[in-house]
């Protein structure tokens, strides 16, 4: 299949947005992550850091070391090379979630909007396999692609100003793992004890863009136990290499 070349858009004088498309699509995200991986292998002088998102790769660079045109040309060449790479996840995570009740205050409303039972919603949400499409906005906030389109519901009219750390939520066709407390307009289905960001643990950040994620239902008692362990720096998610 012929792929459209990405657009090279300036983000000021020290970054390029390599734009693969305007929609949320698995293909665009795979191409973003593939280019990100290639760039990590073929270091280009002057590149400072990269930020993969759903549909674009933001490349921060030092304008004293490389100009826009030269960098855009090298990125285009890399994007044309083996773009079909990196479609399989490097790592698969099983993330425990306590759905509903005080940990998922929107579960019943969300199920009612979808005209299914809360248990059905949990089974279908936990039954899916997701990919970390991007991490952004706040530390460890992991946006997952792969939500069953039948589970998509519009965002809340008014965002909540404060949602708890560890919230697992859905908004539109997206689902995600939030790490720190913060505002959110998504629907809160449950909470995980897993810290995707923990300052006093190695690694500080647990998930990488491109990782695969599935959810395992736990009860409130298990949540409390694992939450204590996680607070002390334990990684309470299970990892299996693919």
């Amino acid at each position, binding site marked *: 299949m012929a792929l459209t070349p990405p657009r090279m858009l*300036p983000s000021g*004088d020290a*970054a390029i947005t390599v734009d693969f498309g305007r*929609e949320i699509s698995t293909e665009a995200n795979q191409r973003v992550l593939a280019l990100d991986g290639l760039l990590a292998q073929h270091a280009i002088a002057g590149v400072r850091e990269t930020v993969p998102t759903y*549909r674009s790769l933001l490349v921060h660079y030092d*304008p004293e070391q490389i100009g826009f045109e030269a960098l855009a040309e090298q990125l285009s060449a890399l994007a044309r090379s083996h773009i079909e790479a990196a479609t399989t996840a490097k790592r698969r995570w099983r993330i425990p979630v306590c759905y509903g009740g005080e940990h998922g205050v929107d579960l019943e409303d969300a199920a009612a909007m979808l005209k299914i039972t809360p248990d059905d919603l949990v089974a279908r949400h936990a039954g899916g396999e997701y990919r970390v499409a991007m991490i*952004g*906005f706040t*530390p*460890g906030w992991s946006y997952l692609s792969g939500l069953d389109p039948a589970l998509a519901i519009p965002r809340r009219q008014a965002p909540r100003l404060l949602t708890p750390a560890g919230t697992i939520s859905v908004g539109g066709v997206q689902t995600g793992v939030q790490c720190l407390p913060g505002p959110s307009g998504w629907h809160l289905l449950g909470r995980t004890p897993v810290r995707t960001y923990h300052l006093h643990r190695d690694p500080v950040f647990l998930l990488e863009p491109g990782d695969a994620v599935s959810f395992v239902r736990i009860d409130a008692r298990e949540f409390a136990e694992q939450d204590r362990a996680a607070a002390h720096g334990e990684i309470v998610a299970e990892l299996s290499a693919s």
Partner: protein
Amino acid sequence: MSKLLIDNVGPASSVQDAGRHGAQRYGLTPSGAMDRLSLAAANVLVGNDAFAAAIELGPLGASFTARDGAVRLALTGAERPAAIDGCAIGLGESFLLADGETLTLGIARSQVFSYLAIAGGIGGEPMFGSLSVNARAGLGSPYPRPLQAGDAIPAASAAVASERRLDLPKPPDGPIRVVLGPQDDEFGDAVATFLASEWKVSATSDRMGYRLEGPEIRHLHGHNIVSDGTVDGSIQVPGNGQPIVLMPDRGTSGGYPKIATVITADLCRLAQLQPGRPFRFKSVSVDEAQAEYRIIAGLIRALPDRLQDAHHARLDLDALLTANVAGAVTNALDA
């Protein structure tokens, strides 16, 4: 080891350096000083690396007392009254704060942020290469939060006064320059409105973003885009059509289209614009913006060469006022 004790400090004051880079892919924002040129000047004045951590002060007043020894300091950035135990000290000069002396800073008269650098830097454990405060992520040293009264900053003891001054070229007064994009094609004719209009920084601005007040900038296809990466200076336009310039505490990604990006060389000037002061934008090419980037990076590297010795006696304001200097002047016509 001396300490710089904070007697009082306004909100929006924190320890900042050049920021925390390399973890934006995990959602960790860079933070760092709002006005890096002033940060660099303050550091160079006390013999530090240009981008060592210093105290960034917001527009309100503050006061500090040296404890357990003297400290050598320098103040740059916003113009504001500054005095040690009543004796005025100048901006852009290094000075000694002796053990027990108090440095008092008034409200900023022009601009917004001041930088108080301490010779020897600020001690602490850098995380991701930086001491900058990011309260949300629990990062920053010596405190992972904005500064408050009662805080004590560990500081190297200074023995002798070694007073230096630094004259910086006056920043240009012209428009804030931007490179259009990466989503300027979401705006059509509104790009022309954006460039032709007068803007003001809103009083609700902070280190995350400067909200702008001006004409409504309308989107061609609605105000939602699929989340995309941001940089310092990204100008995003939310649904109400009032642009927000993203500053160092920004989210690393955002879902509003970005009409343009402030060039690196003009970010300091924008950060120092007081709320309500009118300004305009001007579009430049990436090449022009990168030429300006090299100029300002070169200027910062050359700051140590611009240092001059300053032999100044402290001006005792109280003594001057008591002396009634004006009354001693004779009118030539009386003679």
